């Protein structure tokens, strides 16, 4: 087999394992354990980026994704978009690809992150379905706990709860690993095919993502005069800036 191809395959698989390994643990904070906001895109992106060789790229990705789905609330049985998993995937891929470049410039990195943000938005419905699948899988835990209670093993019945952590972790790991392998095989050649002139657009394009997130947040907060308060503050800030 071609040594170059083997090296590329090893890079793809090992990088995907790194993204999945770190990402699946971060994803636990979202629902299963803590809700300490380690799972927020800004934090999750930075941590994943750091693990994949470029914390700054991870931070850039997290900042772009932070506001997009912030108003989707996990109320009752409503499943919001899993922006943690989407961020981990996007930040992990961006950091891995950037870290492999000899001299990555900020504009090229921003363009790559913008493309990954678009991919993340497209994958949003899938992230909700995956979360839904874990919660269906957890249904079995109730049956198992009740069976163990009947079998006079209350300690083990209580401990069944911890298997839920494994479910959340396992689903996230498998999804991130699969998506990581596919994306790392496709993205680098696709990205190099983009004319370098377009790369200059990266920073303003990423800023528009943040602006779209701001619009989404303001729209979803449902507070009276929100637009007027926002516009007034923005005008005042701009005047002070001048």
């Amino acid at each position, binding site marked *: 087999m071609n040594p170059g191809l083997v090296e590329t395959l090893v890079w793809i698989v090992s990088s995907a394992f790194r993204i999945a390994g770190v990402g699946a643990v971060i994803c636990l904070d979202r*629902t299963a*354990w803590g809700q*300490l*906001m380690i799972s927020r895109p*800004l*934090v999750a992106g930075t941590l994943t980026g750091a693990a994949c060789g470029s*914390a700054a790229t991870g*931070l850039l990705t997290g*900042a772009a994704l*932070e*506001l*997009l*789905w*912030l*108003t989707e*609330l996990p*109320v009752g*049985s409503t499943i919001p978009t899993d922006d943690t998993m989407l961020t981990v995937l996007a930040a992990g891929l961006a950091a891995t690809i950037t870290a492999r470049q000899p001299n990555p410039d900020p504009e090229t990195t921003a363009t790559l992150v913008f493309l990954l*943000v*678009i991919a993340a*938005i497209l994958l949003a419905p899938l992230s909700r379905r995956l979360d839904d699948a874990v919660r269906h899988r*957890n*249904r079995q*835990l109730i049956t198992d*706990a009740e069976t163990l209670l009947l079998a*006079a093993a209350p*300690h083990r*019945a*209580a401990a069944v*709860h911890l298997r*839920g952590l494994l479910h959340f972790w396992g689903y996230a790991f498998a999804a991130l690993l699969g998506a990581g392998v596919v994306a790392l095989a496709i993205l680098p050649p696709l990205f190099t095919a983009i004319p370098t002139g377009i790369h*200059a*657009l990266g*920073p*303003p*394009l*990423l*800023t*528009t*993502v*943040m*602006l*779209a997130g*701001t*619009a*989404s*947040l*303001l*729209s979803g*907060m449902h*507070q009276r005069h*929100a*637009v007027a308060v*926002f*516009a007034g*503050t*923005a005008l005042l800030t701009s*005047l002070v*800036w*001048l």
Partner: protein
Amino acid sequence: MHTVIRHPRLETRIFLRSLGWQASWNYARMQGLGLAYAIYPLLEQRYGSDGEPLRRQMKKYLGFFNTNPVMAAAVLGILVNFECHDRGDEGLRLATTLNSLYGAVGDAFFWGGIKPLTAVMALLCYVGGGGWWAPATLLIGYNLVHLGIRWYIYQAGVHHGFEVVELIHRWQLPRVKIAANYLTIVLLGVMVPVAAADRLPALTGSLLPQLGAAGMVIGGIVLLQRKMSLLQLVLAGALLAIILVGIGGGYG
């Protein structure tokens, strides 16, 4: 029945177990198994590590349970208190009533108030050049409120039982949530011009990028209210940015 010895270490253990409250979240009983897991050390202490009384009591805690995971700390505290006073069944009935109330209040306050506020504070730090302080701001800011309230209401529930309900009522969390939302909006009003200043196409010395960015946000709100999707909005914004780059001849 065994004698109850309430001990700070046991209370802390139950609290720590409650942080993983939602690990077994499912559509049938939602957080039911999580509740049973969290309170199990107390049940074991009260009813012994084996035997019919423990199994019977644990079965009761395996029922349907769902509330906001942070406010659940108050309900858990009440349950611990009632269980220690041989009123476990009464505690469970009260918990059923409190679940929906604290679910609504907690979701609105934490997910709809504090989370957006700390996220925007962190983003403002980021666009202002704060670098690594941005994620740190989010983590510290949110958890000061989150863990502070979570621990406090749990302790209040454990030691004062149902009185914690009155305590939480006095905090007026829905009003605090509205104040937090307006503060978030003001911070967004500061953040957008700062973010746009050196990232969007600029005509030196003019207010165009800052006000243009604020205008794009307001336009975005209108489009979202007219059922435009997030993807369409991002792509429309990107197209506009490309046109502005063409007109402005660059950015920065």
